[in-house]
């Protein structure tokens, strides 16, 4: 068990990071921290993909005529994660935009505070 963990440590860290991100997103009241948590969870998945494509001792995937039979790492997961990063950036930008909007309305970034203010506003109307 320990041996397998020692060899496959990137996967272990990916799982730990994912849980940290999940915990941050679901438990913190601060909206910015929620977005940070989302990004940590996303990064964990990216780490998982990159670790999966990597193989120790193999070359970067550039075909070199001098070594026609060289073994390469798998470039596909890295290429996929490039797309994943773009998606994560756009989601983050959109979320931050909405948070700015909410801050203008309520003057706070605390989700619980916003819920409280909302109930007060609802009771007035």
């Amino acid at each position, binding site marked *: 068990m320990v041996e397998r963990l020692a060899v496959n440590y990137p996967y272990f860290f990916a799982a730990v990071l994912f849980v940290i991100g999940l915990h941050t997103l679901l438990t913190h009241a601060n909206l910015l921290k929620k*977005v940070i948590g*989302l990004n940590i969870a996303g990064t*964990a998945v990216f780490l998982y*993909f990159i670790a999966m494509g990597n193989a120790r001792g193999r070359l970067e995937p550039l075909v070199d005529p001098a070594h026609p039979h060289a073994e390469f790492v798998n470039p596909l997961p890295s290429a996929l994660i490039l797309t994943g990063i773009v*998606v994560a950036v756009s989601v983050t930008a959109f979320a931050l935009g909405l948070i700015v909007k*909410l801050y203008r309305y309520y003057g706070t970034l605390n989700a619980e505070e916003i819920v409280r203010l*909302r109930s007060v506003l609802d009771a007035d109307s």
Partner: protein
Amino acid sequence: MPIADHFPLTIVVGTLFGAYLCPVVAYVRRRWLGRFAAAVTVLAFLQGVHLMDRVVHGEQPLYRVGGWAAPWGIELLVTPSAALMVLVLSGVGMLIAFYCLGYIDHEIAPRAQGWYYAAFLLLLSGMLGMSVTNDLFNTFVMMEITTLGACALVAASDTQRAAEAALRYLLLASLASTMILFGIGMVYSITGNLNLTFVTKELALAWRTYPRLATASIGLLTLGFALKAALFPLHVWLPEAHSAAPSPSSAMLSGLVVKIYAFTLIKMVYVVFAPMSAHLAPLRELLVVLATGAIIGGSLFAMVQDDLKRLLAYSTVAQVGYIFLGAGLGSPSAIMAAFFQIISHALTKSCLFLCAGIILERTGRRRIRLMDGMSKVLPVTTAAFTVAALSMIGLPTLSGFIPKWHLFQGGLEAHRPVFIGIVLMSGLLNAVYYLPIIWRFYFADPRTCPVVHRAVVDPAAWPRPPLYRRLVARLEAPPSMLAPVTVMALGLFVLGLFTGPTVAFLGRLAHSLLEVPVP
């Protein structure tokens, strides 16, 4: 290669480019914007009809993007279920786009309209892409387009409620996306493929070597899609998001967006993970339990709502339960019921939300107890609403009855007659919150509703139509808004009365999905 062979690609990419052009059209000629977006959806619908026609004639259109063959390139595969989704998405999307022509000025500021239509078409193209793609990572990309488009449609309503609901929706949906991507990564590390056909073949060989990884991946995929499809108790984001959004967005979100995630989950469980289906029995059992919770819980929450759009949103939670109940029971009739429910609820709930939009726009009313006597001023809208509500309750001759009927059969086939009782009870629960609304529309005293009362007592108070457009302007709303709801209400009758072809098609679909011979 004739142009029709490119339809699986062009239906997605054409809509996508239409979305990019919307802000440009808005900048050049804002008057043309609505018509442009409607034209894009009409094109998508025509292509959808063509694809459906080919599928009905036994074809299974396959498109290789860029001409690259299967394990390297991205494949688009129009299976019968994908063709069905494409037809429902593009058809209902088209009707909602027409509705927008008359409605959009009331809730979206002029300078934002280009972006609103852009988000609308992005969402549609993302959903179309999710239905036709045969590639795991492509599913993820299309899903993100769908998610961002859906959140943008909620945020388009420039209110505090909408911003808050959109942010909550965005955070939870992105969390679900992250889980799904994690699951996709695990599938890739087991099988070394992203093409669904190859993944299925490889899983058959490899899943016993990595049973825990395979279980974790289907678990993460299920959790992610269930969160996005608002399966009870993961529905917490839905009521606010669907009710705070502008009415056409609500129709889009409630009618179509939750369905596409449910459909993708069914595809994952029954097609991609088919080799380990014996191993997935606990998962299907979990879906059945949660679906039962959704059917009962969603209806109970809906009963106590006073805001019409919130009530409709909670009703969506309950109705999505039927899809998952059918998917979880997993017998041919139950799967058929799940797909019929996808069609039927797409039409019904869109119709209800669009009617709620007309009521909101004409009278400014959201609260049900202020809608007394509404049928006197909005006869067509309330009639369409009534038809859709009765279909929701499951009145025979309307399409909402058919999935219930097939769920009865599915419950018997799965030797679990208790679900007959649950479906019957849920029909009664639906009646408990839909019938009072209908009663208010038709039989309550309009004097309690000042807007309606003024219009009835003193017709001069109601906006007088200009003389030159008398015939059109005498209608309660512009024809572009009334026509879609009327078409949807009539569609419910057509689906409910002429069930033969639909049921035959769905029967073949369910049998091919479960790989059991057609009786």
